[in-house]
């Protein structure tokens, strides 16, 4: 993917700059070939409408034909770009005028990165030049300049040193800063505002403590959490800052702390050390100035990458003297967060060398396999790319969150309405009665009825504030945290093999897990294990690998099946396992075909051997190849080492070195690779392996019989979902070879059409092959993938697979994991090259699925969000008869994702049961997710394991990372992570469903209890002259949410489960209510409101009527305010407690304890607070002395409580009972069934169903260009930098064009091939 591009940007002619507006930039780009198009795209895809981009002039148009066949760059973008048409020639000059609204430079960098992340396009320097050219206001560091070993100069720039500080506070700033942050949150600010209101005596209707106590509690809880987090961060910072590294100071190496390292210092790193800062690599112990690094800390990938120093600095070696005198000057880009880019120059002795990413070691990497290296510190501490990447991530919030915000706002409105009604009431009352009552309660001066109403309004704002209780937010966070912990703790989502528990990396998204409608899944490493195992082979018409019993029946292979013993071969890989003994016997017998078969496997590949601690390891570009070479190794043909000219193999214990004459590398068109070797005996042989169809075309007619048998075997293997390869060989005449080699050399040094010429040559020699047999490699699906997919689709979750793999592979996996099925009505395959064709195919598919459907989609437009500012368009789901599936490839997808076709794509795709998008770029993955998000208003989940999934993981509502072998990058950007795809069903069907259920129950109940609480005040207003008198004791108001009702509702929302996890699996339909938002919505909220209204009426008027004209049994007073307050609050508490009991489906002992405990605590507290002692000590705070003792011994108090409870609860019971009887939900049905059966459901099945299919399997090569060039170039292999031959100079070596490939990472395997680039 990466290309060496000579993109030079030079200042544009002054003319344009002068005529353009101040913020306009003029550039002048010289680019090569199709890169111009890419570049132009990059610019023109800047958000529409914003910048203006137009070509001013473009000459030297070579071919006016459009060029969209650059897989990996959405051609769609090209369309929209005026420039694309004219940029086909090898060298084009383009003048572009870009108008950018500043400061937006960072955006454009970002965009180019997002869209062309892997193209080495020099946007950084481009923009910095732009900035200089047009005199843009300097915002921050524009260019970094430093000189090695010159601390004075470097310090003058005041660059950050290498100390890092991730902590936010110190002892002195903690309190003010933290408080400041907390009060930025609206809820806290609101309570602060209430507190201020309470300080005004005319308004204050409640004592200060009613607000202060909850506020202080909430603030201190958050503060404690923030504080402990920060202390941890500080500790880590300190630990890292105090690490030691050797720094070259004053001509000697000194051990210094990391934090004391300055920009411009030269430091020495040793093997297995962490890289201290972002370094410019100067020299290393390894040949060719290479260093090997592991970037696991940075992007999580564990495979080694190679960096190389400039030759000119490499000559410094480890000579301290030379290094101390090194005074190169570096100019480079300012600090940024792009991990894969670096641009700069090194000026040494008057010469300037360009620097790129290959010369830079980033902080966070680990040095491996390299004794030592020297580096020049370029960025330190906070400027390093690692730290720059630690920035804020976009904060995802759940749909419940958004709904809650809307509700809270409407509650505020409702609050204002209530206060307004009461204030008007007060105005009227004051006017009619209050003025007359002034004898007993003289008014303050200047207070007339309107003013009194105004004051009353605010007083009621204070009293009724409990509709939006501060504890709501705290509780919601606690519940989410609790439910996240359950995920962390779940043993059933723990993967013992890699010792990986599931992890909820975000604790704020749990309930959304219960609402997923679409899953977007990566394939490799997510559905599959990304482990290839050599499973079967067919050699000379005989199939091996199957275990047969005596009667010739297939024996199921499982973990306990006896494995073949390879102990005779001391070079065998102990991890390799094979079950068919006969193959070993045949090999050891010396069967020539079988030996040739394995010899081929040992010779024909691009694997690199590596010896570590006496063990032999293979570094394979694709796991398939690794599997094959490992198989050969175990069967006695051990690939030991290679040089560019030779391959050394241990053949049945005997060391044989083959001369490597040519390596005919793999590419997507050829679909095969060959090697031509000369054996020690001098025999020339061509070994070829490749796709069966391709190989069969090139076979010698003599093996037609063998071909038939092998085809049979191949079909059998394909039916088992194995990836197959055919192997063939051919002996070559030495004279022909000489001649061919000459022509080959000619072709490979040709200036034009090199590829084509080589292809012809290869075609010529790979003919008349003799078939050896075929291999079958299993791309192992992860355990339980088909079952999981089945479960999830039963739960009405649609699964789309988005993969960079090729179509055949993707389809094949689709079949093997049951997403595509033979019995499906039809599988549409969209794979065309023009927009019109794509549209036609999509429409045809749609009409087939729904012949009578409308042409236009049903779009519901609505507004949502705060203040209804968010416009949403929802495309309705369309019903379809039968099961359909769609496979669409990257080309077509690019067209289909265009604005004018996306609706068509969405409709068609959403009608299908299964959608597989293959060959998609990371960007397209994100685009697909965004498309569904935009028009379906459904909750989406993206799951993946590699760096290429990051964009979609970030785009989806919920991102799940598989923590597999592929590294951590996906995990790092995910919200949840676990080790196996099958845990997804538990995450969604159990944890997600419960979390959603709990959260909804919590919210409904919470709103109920607080509305009920508050409405009683409202009713009392009509009896107390709207004077903002509270119904309850102030202490009750303070403690109601914090103590009396806090724990029971927490227990409900932490423990409740309608049915247990097994039943959840048994009935995936239980998941549906979440997708439809059934448990908590605006409608449910209104019901809650009405319910509370009813309850509050009961809870106020029953006590009122029961009390208003009565006395105690000894004739004394009981209708006094205090007794009534006690009665009202006790009634309320009992009623809401019973309501909670009704809502609880799962009574654990904790629930019981909390509920009864809370009631007991309530009575204990009131008896304490109304006791003599409290009154005598805090006279003014506890005026309710004796109320509890004098009232609660009255039978009519208790009778009133009983009546209110009955009236509050029984209608609810009746309503719910009727609902269960008449319109039972799926939950009710399942619970009913559970009760009926009283048995545990069957444990989930774990049988792997064997697929019987006639489909021919895909083909087992990596999808990208092979390692071939690299292997023959010997870049890895040469020991001395001095011996670097001129042959491999940058100009004509094949290496030059694929240079960045040599630190190709395995994770890039999935990216689409770049064949068309060349």
């Amino acid at each position, binding site marked *: 993917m990466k290309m060496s591009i000579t993109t030079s940007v030079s200042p544009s002619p002054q003319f344009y700059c002068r005529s353009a507006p101040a913020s306009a930039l003029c550039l002048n780009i010289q680019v090569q070939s199709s890169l111009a198009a890419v570049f132009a795209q990059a610019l023109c895809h800047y958000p529409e409408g914003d910048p203006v981009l137009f070509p001013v002039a473009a000459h030297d148009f070579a071919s006016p034909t459009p060029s969209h066949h650059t897989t990996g760059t959405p051609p769609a973008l090209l369309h929209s770009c005026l420039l694309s048409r004219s940029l086909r020639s090898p060298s084009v000059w383009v003048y572009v005028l870009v108008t950018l609204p500043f400061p937006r430079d960072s955006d454009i960098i970002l965009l180019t990165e997002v869209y062309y992340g892997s193209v080495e396009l020099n946007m950084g320097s481009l923009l910095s030049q732009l900035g200089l050219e047009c005199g843009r206001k300097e915002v921050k560091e524009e260019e970094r300049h430093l000189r090695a070993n010159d601390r004075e100069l470097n310090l003058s720039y005041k660059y950050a040193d290498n100390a890092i500080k991730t902590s936010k506070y110190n002892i002195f700033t903690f309190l003010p800063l933290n408080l400041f942050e907390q009060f930025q949150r*609206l809820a806290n600010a609101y309570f602060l505002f209430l507190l201020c209101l309470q300080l005004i005596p005319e308004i204050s209707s409640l004592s200060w403590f009613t607000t202060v106590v909850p506020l202080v509690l909430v603030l201190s809880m958050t503060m404690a959490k923030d504080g402990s987090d920060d202390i941890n961060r500080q500790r880590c910072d300190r630990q890292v800052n105090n690490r030691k590294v050797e720094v070259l100071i004053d001509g000697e190496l000194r051990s210094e702390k990391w934090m004391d390292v300055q920009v411009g210092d030269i430091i020495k790193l040793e093997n297995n050390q962490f890289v201290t800062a972002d370094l410019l690599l100067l020299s290393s112990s390894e040949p060719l100035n290479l260093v090997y690094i592991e970037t696991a800390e940075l992007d999580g990938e564990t495979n080694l990458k190679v960096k190389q120093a400039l030759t000119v600095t490499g000559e410094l070696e480890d000579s301290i003297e030379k290094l101390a005198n090194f005074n190169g000057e570096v100019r480079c880009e300012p600090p940024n967060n792009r991990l894969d880019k670096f641009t700069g120059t090194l000026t040494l002795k008057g010469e300037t060398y360009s620097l790129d990413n290959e010369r830079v070691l980033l902080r966070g990497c680990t040095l491996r396999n390299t004794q030592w290296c020297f580096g020049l510190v370029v960025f330190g501490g906070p400027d390093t790319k690692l730290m720059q990447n630690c920035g804020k991530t976009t904060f995802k919030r759940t749909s419940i969150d958004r709904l809650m915000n809307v509700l809270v706002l409407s509650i505020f409105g409702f609050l204002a309405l209530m206060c307004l009604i009461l204030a008007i009431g007060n105005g009227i009352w004051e006017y009619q009665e209050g003025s007359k009552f002034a004898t007993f309660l003289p008014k303050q001066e200047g207070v007339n009825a309107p003013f009194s109403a105004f004051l009353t309004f605010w007083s009621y704002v204070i009293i009724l504030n409990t509709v939006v209780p501060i504890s709501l*937010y705290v509780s919601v966070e606690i519940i989410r945290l609790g439910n996240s912990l359950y995920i962390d703790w779940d043993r059933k989502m723990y993967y013992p093999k890699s010792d990986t528990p599931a992890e909820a990396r975000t604790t704020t998204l749990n309930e959304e897990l219960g609402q997923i409608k679409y899953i977007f899944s990566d394939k490799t490493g997510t559905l599959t294990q990304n482990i290839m195992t050599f499973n079967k082979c067919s050699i000379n018409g005989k199939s091996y690998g199957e275990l047969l019993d005596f009667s010739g029946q297939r024996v199921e292979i499982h973990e306990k099946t006896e494995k073949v013993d390879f102990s005779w071969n001391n070079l065998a890989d102990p991890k390799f396992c094979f079950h068919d003994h006969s193959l070993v016997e045949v090999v050891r017998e010396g069967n020539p075909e079988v030996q040739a078969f394995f010899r081929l496997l040992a010779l024909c590949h691009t694997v690199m051997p590596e010896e570590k601690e006496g063990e032999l390891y293979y570094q394979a570009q694709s796991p398939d190849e690794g599997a094959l070479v490992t198989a050969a190794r175990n069967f006695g043909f051990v690939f030991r080492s290679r040089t560019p000219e030779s391959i050394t193999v241990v053949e049945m214990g005997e060391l044989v070195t083959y001369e490597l004459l040519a390596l005919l590398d793999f590419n997507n068109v050829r679909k095969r690779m060959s090697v031509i070797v000369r054996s020690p005996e001098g025999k020339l042989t061509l070994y070829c392996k490749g796709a069966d169809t391709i190989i069969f075309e090139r076979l010698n007619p003599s093996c037609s019989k063998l071909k038939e048998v092998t085809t049979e075997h191949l079909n059998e293997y394909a039916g088992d979902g194995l990836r197959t390869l055919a192997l063939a060989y051919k002996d070559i005449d030495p004279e022909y070879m000489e001649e061919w080699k000459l022509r080959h050399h000619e072709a490979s040094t040709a200036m034009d059409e090199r590829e084509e010429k080589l292809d012809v040559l290869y075609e010529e020699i790979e003919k008349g092959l003799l078939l050896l047999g075929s291999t079958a490699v299993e791309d192992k699906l992860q355990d339980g993938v088909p079952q999981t997919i089945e479960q999830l689709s039963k739960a009405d979750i649609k699964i789309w697979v988005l993969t960079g793999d090729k179509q055949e592979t993707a389809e094949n996996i689709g079949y093997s994991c049951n997403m595509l099925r033979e019995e499906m009505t039809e599988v549409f395959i969209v794979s065309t090259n023009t927009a019109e064709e794509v549209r036609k195919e999509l429409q045809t598919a749609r009409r087939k699925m729904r012949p009578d459907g409308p042409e236009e989609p049903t779009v519901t437009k609505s507004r949502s969000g705060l203040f209804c500012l968010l416009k949403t368009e929802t495309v309705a789901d369309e019903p379809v008869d039968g099961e359909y599936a769609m496979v669409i490839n990257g080309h077509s997808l690019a067209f289909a994702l265009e604005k004018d076709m996306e609706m068509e794509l969405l409709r068609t795709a959403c009608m299908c049961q299964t959608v597989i998008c293959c060959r998609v770029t990371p960007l397209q993955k994100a685009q697909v997710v965004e498309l569904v998000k935009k028009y379906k208003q459904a909750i989406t989940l993206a799951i993946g394991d590699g760096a290429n999934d990051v964009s979609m993981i970030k785009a989806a509502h919920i991102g799940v990372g598989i923590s597999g072998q592929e590294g951590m990058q996906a995990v790092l950007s995910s919200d949840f992570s676990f080790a196996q795809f099958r845990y997804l069903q538990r995450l969604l069907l159990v944890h997600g469903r419960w979390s959603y259920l709990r959260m909804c129950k919590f919210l409904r109940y919470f709103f109920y209890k607080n509305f009920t609480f508050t409405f009683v005040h409202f009713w009392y207003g009509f*009896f107390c002259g709207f004077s903002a008198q509270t119904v309850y004791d102030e202490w009750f108001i303070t403690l109601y949410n914090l103590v009396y009702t806090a724990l029971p509702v927490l227990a409900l929302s932490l423990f409740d489960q309608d049915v247990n996890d097994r039943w959840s699996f048994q009935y995936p339909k239980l998941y549906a209510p979440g997708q439809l938002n059934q448990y908590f919505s605006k409608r449910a909220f209104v019901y809650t409101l009405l319910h509370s209204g009813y309850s509050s009426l009961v809870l106020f008027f029953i006590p009122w009527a029961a009390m208003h*004209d009565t*006395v105690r049994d000894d004739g004394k007073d009981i209708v006094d*305010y205090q007794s009534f307050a006690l009665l009202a609050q006790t009634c309320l508490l009992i009623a809401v407690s019973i309501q909670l009991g009704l809502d609880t489906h799962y009574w654990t002992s904790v629930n019981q304890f909390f509920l009864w405990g809370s009631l007991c605590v309530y009575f204990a507290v009131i008896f304490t607070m109304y006791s003599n002692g409290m009154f005598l000590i805090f006279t003014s705070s506890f005026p309710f002395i004796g109320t509890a003792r004098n009232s609660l011994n009255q*039978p009519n108090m208790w*009778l009133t409580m009983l009546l209110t409870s009955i009236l509050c609860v029984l209608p609810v019971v009746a309503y719910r009972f009727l609902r269960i009887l008449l319109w039972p939900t799926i939950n009710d049905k399942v619970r009913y069934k559970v009760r*009926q059966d009283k048995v545990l459901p069957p444990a989930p099945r774990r049988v792997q169903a064997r697929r019987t299919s006639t489909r021919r399997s895909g083909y087992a090569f990596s999808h990208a260009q092979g390692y071939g060039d690299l292997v023959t170039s010997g870049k890895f292999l040469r020991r001395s930098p001095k011996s670097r031959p001129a042959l491999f100079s940058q100009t004509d070596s094949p290496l030059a064009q694929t240079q960045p490939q040599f630190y190709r990472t395995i994770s890039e395997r999935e990216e689409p091939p770049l064949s068309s680039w060349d």
Partner: protein
Amino acid sequence: MATSFSGEEITDRKPELSVMGKAKANAGPLARRPDNSAFKQQRLPAWSPMLTAQTVLPFFYSMAAVCVLLGVWLLVTVQNTHELKVDYTHAGSCDKCFEKRKDRANANQSCNCTVVFNIENMFKGDVFFYYGLINFHQNLRQYMDSRDDGQMIGRKENLKNPSSYCKPFIKDKNGLPIAPCGAVANSMFNDSFTLVYHSAASGPVVHVPLFRKGITWYTDKNVKFRNPQANKTQTLAQVFEGTAQPLYWQKPVYDLDPWDRNNNGFINEDLIVWMREAAFPNFKKLYGVLNRAIEPFTEGLPAGNYSVHISYNFPVEYFQGRKEVVLSTVSWFGGQNNFLPVAYLVTGCLILLLAVILTAVWWKFGKNGRNMEE
């Protein structure tokens, strides 16, 4: 604005790309395996009830029965109590007093009047004498707050320096602190009553003897209200020296009960009763209890004609209020309030109705569990 609502900082995303090289807590092949505890695996044993016909219907029937029975019992109990309310605002000879009190200038002139009423059936048992006020808002927030419990508990410093809550009745115009301060105390009900029994046969006029003590809550009398500490030699008047009486009072607080020295000051029972503010604007407060030691009241209040002699002081015309005297007997259930019995009866009937409906619905739809099949 509401974007900051859900408390992003409370639970931040766990730190990404955190500090390098985290060590595992404990080594071993399954070091990070979660505990297998019932709590962590969400397998806590639990009881999961469900609303089934077998539980709901019997519950409804039994609740209906309970409510109806309770209602009947309460109704019988309440029917056995007696209550008589006499509105004397401008009844009988009180009319002139009512007119007199309209003019604030006459506040210091006393006015007595008499209201006559008849008791047809004897009030058996303890009879309680209440005064009632209609439309007097003792529950206004500013009114209720306008008191100083610290002063009433006898704290010397509060006596001389009443709390600011008492506004605007903290100090009189001479600057002397008011004791007891505040609007509540200031507006204390100050009518006094004498109940006279005219036996049926136009016999002798008998003063109905009333206990004017023991009408407060025990806690109020003994804990909440106390006079300031006095040395042995000090009289109550001396203790209250330097304070002013509330503006509307005719007597200082230490002289409220001329007959009983121990019923003066803050522990005066009428004051205590008044200070227990009513929750609603219509209320009655205990004035006295029939002393049944004296004939002919040993059995209660005999039937016959009665008159109340009222020292009519408390003005109600300003706020369109009314005053009444209430005579009542009580049961274990308190005073005569028919609401609860009736409410229980009605509720019981409703529940019964509901239960029948539910049973019918269940019989028709839910009995065979057909709806419950998927």
